């Protein structure tokens, strides 16, 4: 009994203190907002935003609502996070493995890259890419093309745009190809387990993924053409590229900075993971006659992944949260569009900041859930 009181007492007091502190802040905010005639409410979300955004994945202009502007910002945040995570993972794996290389030059170069980019603040790197590196790019009229179709200018990267006809048929053909690949894979596994025969799954899969879309072009009526960016004159010395797809320099700088920075941490996770697999495991695998490729694929990687995934999840979360630095270089992410312009135009500070915080929380939790699910899947299944 006495023990219980001793245990419960401090916990109760802590809970009470937390509740009181929250209560105090809420009350304080309420009283002060009332005093200053600020009303609280989320009704503004349906009002007309009346400001434009530089870059949007969905159709948007100022006549849409603040909620739509929020979606624009959110999608831009997700876009830069997804591209960043993708690039950082690839680069991280390459550099991480390079650090384990016995080749002196590759090894040292990878080590130098990791130490250099990991130890400079991200914001500074972002400023470097945006204000130093990308600002020295040529003006549109002076830009030299790459392969005659890509143009890298101070106003952004212009690439040819795809013009699809019957895109949905092409898309379904791809889906069909992937479904058949999965089917072949399960079938091959069954055959191997029952008869010991091996079916060349890789070649068949590649063949399928090529054949299905090809068929969609030949008989499905799908066609693809390109729209190449063309230089357009706005005034005597003012030019812009018209047509094609334009990637604003803000997006490029942010992607570069985020992926180069985060890749260093992922590289270290990969290195730690691979080194964390006992030497005995590799030797045992080799001794039963597995080829070096099989050793890596069947013995080392499955065990290394278990070490790599949890800290890498952290890096993915960091990258997503760090994308909020976009506001410093005019990339219209959720912080710039919603917690910036929309906040300014409506003055709804508490509402907008709380929505933004909740959004980042949801994004982070989604990534965590996804990565934890993957982590569980590859974890040791004890029987």
């Amino acid at each position: 009994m006495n023990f219980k009181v001793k245990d419960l007492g401090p916990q109760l007091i802590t809970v009470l203190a937390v509740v009181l502190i929250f209560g105090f802040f809420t009350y304080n905010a309420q009283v002060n907002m009332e005093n200053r005639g600020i009303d609280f409410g989320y009704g503004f979300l349906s009002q007309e935003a009346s400001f434009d955004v530089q870059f949007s994945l969905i159709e948007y202009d100022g006549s849409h609502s603040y909620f739509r502007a929020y979606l624009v910002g959110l999608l831009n945040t997700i876009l830069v996070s997804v591209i960043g995570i993708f690039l950082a993972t690839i680069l991280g794996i390459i550099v991480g493995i390079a650090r384990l290389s016995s080749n002196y030059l590759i090894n040292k170069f990878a080590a130098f890259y990791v130490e250099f980019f990991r130890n400079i603040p991200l914001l500074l790197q972002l400023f470097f890419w945006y204000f130093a590196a990308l600002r020295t790019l040529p003006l549109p009229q002076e830009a030299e093309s790459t392969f005659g179709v890509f143009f890298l200018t101070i106003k952004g990267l212009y690439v040819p745009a795809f013009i699809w006809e019957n895109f949905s048929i092409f898309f379904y053909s791809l889906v069909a190809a992937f479904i058949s690949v999965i089917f072949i894979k399960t079938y091959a596994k069954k055959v191997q387990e029952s008869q010991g025969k091996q079916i060349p799954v890789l070649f068949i899969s590649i063949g399928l993924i090529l054949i299905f879309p090809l068929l969609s072009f030949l008989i499905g009526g799908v066609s693809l053409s390109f729209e190449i960016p063309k230089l357009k004159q706005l005034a005597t010395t003012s030019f812009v590229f018209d047509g094609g797809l334009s990637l604003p320099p803000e997006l490029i700088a942010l992607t570069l900075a985020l992926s180069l920075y985060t890749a260093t941490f992922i590289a270290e996770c990969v290195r730690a993971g691979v080194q964390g697999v006992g030497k005995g495991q590799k030797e045992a695998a080799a001794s039963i006659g597995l080829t070096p490729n099989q050793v890596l694929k069947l013995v080392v990687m499955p065990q290394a992944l278990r070490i790599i995934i949890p800290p890498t999840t952290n890096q993915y979360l960091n990258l997503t949260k760090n994308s909020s630095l976009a506001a410093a270089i005019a990339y219209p992410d959720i912080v710039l569009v919603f917690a910036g312009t929309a906040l300014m135009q409506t003055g709804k500070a508490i509402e907008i900041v709380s929505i933004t915080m909740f959004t980042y929380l949801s994004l982070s939790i989604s990534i965590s859930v996804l990565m934890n699910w993957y982590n569980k899947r590859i974890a040791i299944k004890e029987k």
Partner: protein
Amino acid sequence: MFKYLKQLTSLVAMVAVLFTFTTETMAAKKSKTLKNTQKKGFVRCGVSQGLPGFSNADAAGNWTGVDVDVCRAVAAAVLGDANKVKFTPLSAKERFTALTSGEIDILSRNTTWTLSRDADIGLTFVGVNFYDGQGFMVRKSSGITSTSQFKNGISACTNLGTTTELNMRDFFNSKGISYEPVTFEKADEVVAAYDAGRCDTYTTDKSGLAAQRIKLSNPDEHVVLPETISKEPLGPVVRQGDAVWEDIVRWSLNTMIEAEEYGITSANADSMKTSDNPAIKRLVGAEGEMGAAFGLDNEWNLRIIKQVGNYGESYKRNIADTGILPDRGPNELWTKGGILYVPPSR
């Protein structure tokens, strides 16, 4: 013995409570912000992060500008010393939150007076210290001499969270021109982006364009287009809910403008005490009880004129002599063809 002690304590407590109540109600007549300001010994003033002519700090950290002078005038009025001001540089995005949260007491940062700002977000605009309008700056070499030459695909750099952003949309929309807005939080970043060629045009208040032009690598290669696309009355802002403080700031600004009207300058203010004109005498604290309503002494307005000068002096010192906008345009007194007109101090 203990019994009496207990009674004594409750008596003392009761007296103390009563006393606090009476002092509270007496103090309530005086502005809370004024009280706090006098206790602290300085006026907390929110300014821009550097806009020559309006609020700009030199290398030694001394702030100058017409917006700065409004805060200095208030400091002279309530503290007796125009230098007792603590300046907080704020971005366009931060400014209103800083004011409503109580971090600053006056926001004097080239802020446009609009209905929604005045009504919605817990702010009160006290007046106009600069009549402005939004314009565009382009490179001279572009050959553009009017906004009618703008074409689809033009990119425009501007500040985040400003009326500029909204006016820009209205303007391009009404002309049916598609454009790329590039918005930065700091004015310096906008200038740098425009300077590097990221944008074809830079748009903000015309006074701002004139002031920022100086910061460009080659100011002479740029030109401000003649069109004005909006009304931008810029003025100081205070928090809603302290009517006395609001009046103090409003009449500090009005005093500067009216002083110019009556020809009272920092140099001749003292001698004006013996003027024959009662309006002038009131402005230098020699007649009437002009400070009592604010909880100030009678020479508060004299101190403003002596220490900061009248509006004309402030304009000349900060905007005309620095070459930003030598012509006062609408910011001339109503008696001289402008639209500066303030209610009388009486």
